[in-house]
């Protein structure tokens, strides 16, 4: 890995010394190397790596949980797990994969790429960005605390009432679910505000919204979805919290409450949530395919607007998760219709990806394979989704393995495949080394075959009536064979990720990667691999969509692409002409985030912990607001930068690159 203690970041402002200038008791940290710098970093790239690494760690945990499920279900009357353990394992598997894997992986890409893709030096609020990461981490820890503290949540990832109440769930498991996700929700909400402001306000000169890369667009729509959906979940969670802590009867039928309140609030969040999970992966595919087809994305405006349309329409379909809950025919019909309509903008995307590949000069690389797999597998999942939209048929399918098949095809076969493809695609940029190709192919095929073996037969089992969320099935149902196949498939997936892990480890010995190894189209490829801490020596002025491509290639009279001579990246080995002014690291985001799990555990065990957490939060809030943005004693080589003038900057000349087409 390029970014380690041994290889300090290229911080041309030269801040490696710790300067002591107390404004109050604590000095602001300045070091950007060493393990402690990861605790205080506010650099979006490091934060992106933190998100990604942590997400992969939780993926490992969620994967173990999946394998436990599959071991239990490999044979009828499984004895691997008790029913109670099974309930905890499948609940944690789902909750982990949704909130601690897919969402933070998307956040990793969004954090790392958006500033680079829009031509900025960082996000709008770098410390808030760090706070989001730490808050997510602590939320994940609280969520998993149950393994050590008396039992994990066991009520499904959606945690329906009234089973979530004290009467049926007297232990703390549900509280860990609730508090852990409340904390993680703060991370997402705050991150959404940050990235929206970044996309709207920090684009390079000339980058109109319709010149932003599609990944950035999809991430932007995702942030708006998070912005508006998380508060709805927050309401539900506070109601549940007050029910469990204080005895309020919000979901208790005995108090006159309607348990459907939980379902509605949860799914008003939950449906946009699934688009939150898939749209970033759609964005990733839209970046990968044009590069390896050597063709622009087919129908860029349609891709953008269909993403926006999915964002809007996603709010109008939530009760399709509730068809069997007694909503009544009018609601069911209305939501059935709206759900069918939402297939349209997604279909537009599928067609546009096909259109991108059609007639292109295809290079079948590992990232391209993952991208194509997303398109195929998501289509399968989408088709089963349309079948659920038909309410009468959903009444048969709901709570069976057919649904499990559907959502794994769209979320694993779709989102996760896309994100793994993204990892292969951007790995050289992020870490400065390629991942090894052969190992990548082993990973891909093992994962693709394993995935389809694991989840394909679930369609069949579901239609044969095998119910979800049951710890075992009896002999003689005729389900044994496919369950065994699925378990084999699941283990193949596990092996594929061992290959991936091995690839990551051995790739540290690969030669350094070039700035633009894939002949990319967007601005992140226009700077070194890995980028310098300030991203670009000079911020480019943008005149096209796919700006970097247009700098590298021109059309000649016969409309052929001709590589432009001596085209320069926006980073020179000598560093920028004038040192960019960057804010210093800070530890307040970590401290503020740390207060939250204290408060959470305090609510469950002793209010003294709440007091400690509260003090941390208050101290950190003030420390954060009052610390100067850079250490005042650090040398400023760039006082002149504070005059704001427009400069149209030419990219800095680098060592001449190959100019073959």
């Amino acid at each position, binding site marked *: 890995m390029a970014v380690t203690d041994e290889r300090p970041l290229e911080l041309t402002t030269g801040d490696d010394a710790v300067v002591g200038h107390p404004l109050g008791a604590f000095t602001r940290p300045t070091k950007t190397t060493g393990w402690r710098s990861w605790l205080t970093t506010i650099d979006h790239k490091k934060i992106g790596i933190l998100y990604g690494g942590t997400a992969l760690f939780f993926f490992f945990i969620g994967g173990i949980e999946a394998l436990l499920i599959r071991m239990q279900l490999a044979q009828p009357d499984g004895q691997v797990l008790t029913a109670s353990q099974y309930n905890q394992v499948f609940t944690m598997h789902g909750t982990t994969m949704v909130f601690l894997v897919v969402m933070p992986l998307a956040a990793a890409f969004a954090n790392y790429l958006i500033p680079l893709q829009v031509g900025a*030096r960082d996000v709008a609020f770098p410390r808030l960005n760090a706070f989001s990461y730490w808050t997510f981490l602590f939320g994940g820890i609280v969520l998993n605390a149950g393994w050590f503290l008396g039992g994990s949540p066991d009520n499904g990832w959606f945690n329906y009432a009234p089973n979530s109440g004290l009467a049926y769930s007297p232990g703390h498991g549900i509280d860990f679910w609730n508090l852990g996700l409340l904390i993680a929700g703060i991370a997402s909400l705050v991150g959404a505000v940050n990235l929206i402001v970044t996309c709207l306000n920090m684009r390079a000169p000339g980058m109109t919204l319709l010149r932003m890369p599609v990944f950035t667009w999809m991430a932007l729509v995702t942030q708006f979805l998070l*912005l508006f959906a998380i508060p709805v979940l927050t309401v539900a969670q506070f109601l549940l919290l007050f029910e469990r802590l204080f005895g309020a009867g919000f979901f208790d039928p005995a108090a*006159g409450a309607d348990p459907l309140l939980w379902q509605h609030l949860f799914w008003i969040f939950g449906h946009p949530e699934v688009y939150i999970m898939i749209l970033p992966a759609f964005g990733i595919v839209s970046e990968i395919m044009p590069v390896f087809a050597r063709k622009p994305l087919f129908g860029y405006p349609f891709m953008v607007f269909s993403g926006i349309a999915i964002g809007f329409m996603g709010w109008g379909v939530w009760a399709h998760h509730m068809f069997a809950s007694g909503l009544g025919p009018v609601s069911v019909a209305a939501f059935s219709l709206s759900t069918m309509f939402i297939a349209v903008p997604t279909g537009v995307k599928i067609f546009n990806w096909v259109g991108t590949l059609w007639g292109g000069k295809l290079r079948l690389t590992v990232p391209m394979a993952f991208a194509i797999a997303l398109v195929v597998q998501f289509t399968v999942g989408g088709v089963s989704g349309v079948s659920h939209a038909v309410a009468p048929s959903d009444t048969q399918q709901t709570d069976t393995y057919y649904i499990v098949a559907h959502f794994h095809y769209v979320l694993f076969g779709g989102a996760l495949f896309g994100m793994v493809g993204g990892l292969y695609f951007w790995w050289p940029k992020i870490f400065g080394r390629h991942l090894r190709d052969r190992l990548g192919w082993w990973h891909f095929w093992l994962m693709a075959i394993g995935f389809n073996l694991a989840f394909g037969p679930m369609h069949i089992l579901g239609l044969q009536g095998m119910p979800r969320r049951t710890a075992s099935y009896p002999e003689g149902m005729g389900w044994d064979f496919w369950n065994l196949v699925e378990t084999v498939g699941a283990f193949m997936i596990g092996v594929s990720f061992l290959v991936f892990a091995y690839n990551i480890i051995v790739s540290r010995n690969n030669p350094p990667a070039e700035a633009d190894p894939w002949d990319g189209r967007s601005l992140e490829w226009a700077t070194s691999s890995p980028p310098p801490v300030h991203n670009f020596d000079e911020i480019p002025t943008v005149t096209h969509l796919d700006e970097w491509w247009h700098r590298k290639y021109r059309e000649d009279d016969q409309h052929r692409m001709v590589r432009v001579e001596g085209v320069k990246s926006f980073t020179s080995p000598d560093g920028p002409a004038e040192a960019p002014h960057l804010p210093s690291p800070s530890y307040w985001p970590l401290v503020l985030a740390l207060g939250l799990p204290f408060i959470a555990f305090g609510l469950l065990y002793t209010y003294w912990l709440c007091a400690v957490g509260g003090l941390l939060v208050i101290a950190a809030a003030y420390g954060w607001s009052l610390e100067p*943005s850079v250490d005042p004693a650090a040398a400023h080589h760039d006082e002149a930068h504070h005059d704001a003038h427009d*400069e149209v900057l030419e990219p800095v000349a680098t060592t001449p690159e190959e100019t073959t087409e």
Partner: protein
Amino acid sequence: MTTTAEHTSAAHPTEAHHTSTGLSNEKLAMWIFLGSECLLFGGLISTFLLYREVDPLRGPSVESLYDIPFTSVSSFVLLMSSLTMVLAVAAIKRGDQRNTRVWLMTTALLGASFVGGQVYEFTVFYREGLGYTTNLQGSAFYTLTGFHGVHVSLGIVMLLSLVVLSLRGRMGTERAETVEIVGLYWHFVDVVWIVIFTVVYLITP
């Protein structure tokens, strides 16, 4: 042109930094955040609307306990605090440190009276037999108004912090936007109360 990444500091005066929209990052962020708060309060209001229909299984109904004249005065006080808030913003834009503090303090005091009024109201309700968990209506009522009250209280803390910063000479005109942004939050909290006052107190089934 370099885009500076962050601009909240006491050591560096806030510059009109260049942004793609020409709008300040912090102000845009506050408006975006307020957009999300609409979903939060909407959910709490909806929960109340749903559960006010449920006959109390024990204890009094919350509507039977309302003291509309009292709450009206409270609402008026909060409304006037929005006025003093904009006067504070106007003052700091003029560089009038003293009046900035005067109006900020007044806003905080009016807000505190509002919260005090809420506390008094809740105490009366409690004595009349409506605790937090007495009945479902009451729980929903207290949760909604409680969330609002916490928001007001956080606002008061922010206002007082600004007063202290001003006393320490750290609130020059370059900080006008900070006051404006705290003002936006304050007005939002007021606007939510406008909705709550009508929907919860005045429009009763």
